[in-house]
């Protein structure tokens, strides 16, 4: 019996605070979908900040008030085999500032497709140790405005993410740790010259690569996942926002967040999955100190021939 759990946690790396980049994050947990199961649904998220780090200085800006980002979009995960899952998402993002005159922006952001492969699993009595290799790409689905931070809906780079992840479960308790390297393509903006730490006469902007680490621990059984999460995004290069300047896509955006994440799959409504999460940015650089909330509704479809026995939501 396949005993793989549906993935429905959608963290959203809310690089959000300043850039408003939202990203599905089910590729950072230790749960796999069973073969021929497809889990699809809608994810929504909202973030808000009224303070941001200008370089390393935490400040507010009365001409922005709070910067709010909302996101909604389809997301899904396909169990190709019990070792290999494919995950996609396509968020629609809307931004606005509560004070000042600056407009908000909205539109479909980046399509992402991630392959999550379980390389190794060792089961011993009541404990399980697994190793995952994960690779993903994301690309903007349209030429949205990148150079109007903090209200741009995204940063516009094509990203290649490579991640290694370890998961250990003991009875119903687990810990998961992962580390990623994100290679980012250059982007093109609407002006032909810009100043970083010097003047550059081009509409092309070099986007520094980034790393992302995710740690999570908690409880999971066939009905519930409840976990505490911490994550760290670090941009490998870039420059600081100078005093009272506007942010720029190639700023060195860093952030550390802590949060809680939960999922509920009621046993009497097989196939339905509800998720909710809350995160708080606790430290950052060139980003907003954001509070972030997320909710999702998903349904698991079974395309395997063995209809009826299908949906196993138990974790092990």
């Amino acid at each position, binding site marked *: 019996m396949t005993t793989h759990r549906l993935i429905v946690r959608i963290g959203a790396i809310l690089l959000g605070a300043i850039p408003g980049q939202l990203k599905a994050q089910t590729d950072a947990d230790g749960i796999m979908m069973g073969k021929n199961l497809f889990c699809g649904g809608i994810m929504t998220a909202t973030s808000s900040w009224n303070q941001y780090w200008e370089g390393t200085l935490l400040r507010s800006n*009365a001409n922005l008030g709070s910067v709010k980002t909302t996101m909604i979009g389809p997301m899904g995960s396909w169990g190709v085999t019990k070792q290999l899952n494919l995950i996609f998402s396509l968020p629609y993002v809307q931004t606005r500032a509560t004070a*000042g005159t600056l407009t908000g922006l909205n539109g479909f952001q980046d399509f992402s497709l991630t392959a999550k492969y379980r390389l190794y699993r060792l089961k011993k009595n009541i404990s399980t140790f697994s190793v995952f290799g994960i690779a993903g790409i994301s690309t903007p689905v349209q030429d949205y405005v990148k150079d*109007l931070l903090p209200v741009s809906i995204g940063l516009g780079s094509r990203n290649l993410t490579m991640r290694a992840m370890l998961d250990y479960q003991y009875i119903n308790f687990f810990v998961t740790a992962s580390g990623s390297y994100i290679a980012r393509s250059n982007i093109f903006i609407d002006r032909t010259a810009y100043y970083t730490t010097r003047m550059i006469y081009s509409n092309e902007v070099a986007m520094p690569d980034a790393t992302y680490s995710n740690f999570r621990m908690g409880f999971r059984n066939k009905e519930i996942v409840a976990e505490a999460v911490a994550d760290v995004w670090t941009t490998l290069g870039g420059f600081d926002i100078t005093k009272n*300047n506007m942010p720029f896509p190639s700023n060195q955006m860093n952030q550390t967040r802590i949060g809680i994440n939960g999922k509920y799959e009621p046993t009497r409504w097989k196939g339905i999955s509800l998720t909710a999460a809350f995160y708080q940015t606790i430290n950052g650089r060139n980003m907003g100190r954001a509070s972030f909330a997320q909710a999702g509704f998903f349904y698991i479809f079974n395309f395997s021939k063995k209809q009826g026995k299908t949906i196993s939501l138990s974790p092990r």
Partner: protein
Amino acid sequence: MKKYIFISLILLTACNKDIVEVNQTFPMLSATYSDSAAGKWKTILGFQPDTYPTNAPLPSNDAGFLQQLNDIAALQKNATPEDMANLRYWGTGGVLRWNEILRELVAKYNLPPVENADGTYPIPSANNPLAYPFFPFANPPYAARAYAYVSAAQYDALVTAYFWKSRWKRLPAYQLDNRIQPMLTDNGGNCYPSADAVIYGVTGTMLRLLFPGEVTYINQQLAKHRKARLLAGMETASDLDAGEALGNTIAQLYIQRARTDGAGAAVAIVNGVNLWKVFEDDCIARNEIPWMSMESPKRPPMLPFFGKVKPFLFDSATMVTTLRPLPPPSTRSIAFQKELEEVRYYSQNQTRERLRIVHFWADGVGTYTPPGHWNAIAAEEFVKLKWSEVRWARAFALLNMSLMDAAIVCWDAKYTYYNPRPSQVDNSIKTLTGLPNFPAYTSGHSTFSGAAAEILGYLVPSRKQAFSEMAAEASMSRLYGAIHYRSDCTAGLASGKKVGEFAVKRAMADGAGN
């Protein structure tokens, strides 16, 4: 095997973050005409070149001079790859590169100060440039004036230099010593005083005044320019020293003018008293809605007395009588409501193409400003024309005097009429770019662009239509951005064009031809 090479190439390309920067691809300066008679061109300040004499150059058999030739030969022999890169960088032309350096400094310093804890705003001080708020706040009027002073001073200094060059007729070093190679095109022989050194002499002195916090950086650039010229194999150390000294002399004339042109009082706040309130009171007395800062906390308007600064191309009285635009539609009129409606439309009906136009021309905080943008546009055109240094300087002087005078005319209108921004009258109007902190009428971008397109169209006739279209787009970008009414844009474009016509008139009479 080939396949793998191909794949690796694709991967390498994907990882390649190098960017082609337009200004790194410019060709070496190679003038079609040397303009060796430029010593007869009219100076901007109206002096005769022989008012500022140069010492006679060292005879070419002087022991000290021969040592200078030896030094060049040694320098060429021991040139490092960095020296060669530096040579190629400056080889594109001194006027071009110093104009770029100025644009860079403007972008770096174009940042409005943060408010104090009590909600007031600090005013940058030239006497303490490195303490926050940094001096200067290189906003568009400040920048326009800086571009104009630097370019006009460069032009006058080069005209003076060309006068003395053809008087002294110093041969280039490579013709005096066959160990020395010309590493760049020799653009006219007569090497005393060095044109390049005149440029860095005059510009260095002007920039140290305009950006007093950047003295170290400016001096470093100056030393690099000097080193590139020594390596080039044309001018000796004494040719360069004479040029630098002459440049300094001419810069002093411009510094004198700058100290008395009224810009120092443009902030219109003296000992905490807001002298600009008079504009607000006048506006209320006319029964119109006065402009109000939409920033929080309310920021005093930008350089309210900049309209009183002494222009280059006409006098202040002419400006008021012939260049000040007629009043905008009354804020109580139907016409005003219609204009407001149009702004509301563009605020609510954004398209990607209009956003592109808004952001292409925005040139807001942290940029080289609209005058800098027109300098960048001009530079890319000028490199195609194979001009001599003095003709480069003339073109930038004409362009930048137009831009500064456009700023004066525009700021005069803004404060004469003190018209509110659309978002002030209807706070549902959201802007697609930053809302500038000064009255609406007329649009600064439009005035700058009208002036720039006019003089550039004269200097580069084949591009006249293109410049005019760019100016129209720049002007409309402010309406699309929902920060200006249409009449701000059209009136600005028209008065800018008139300013440009003054520059054209000057250009036709300065003796340079075309």
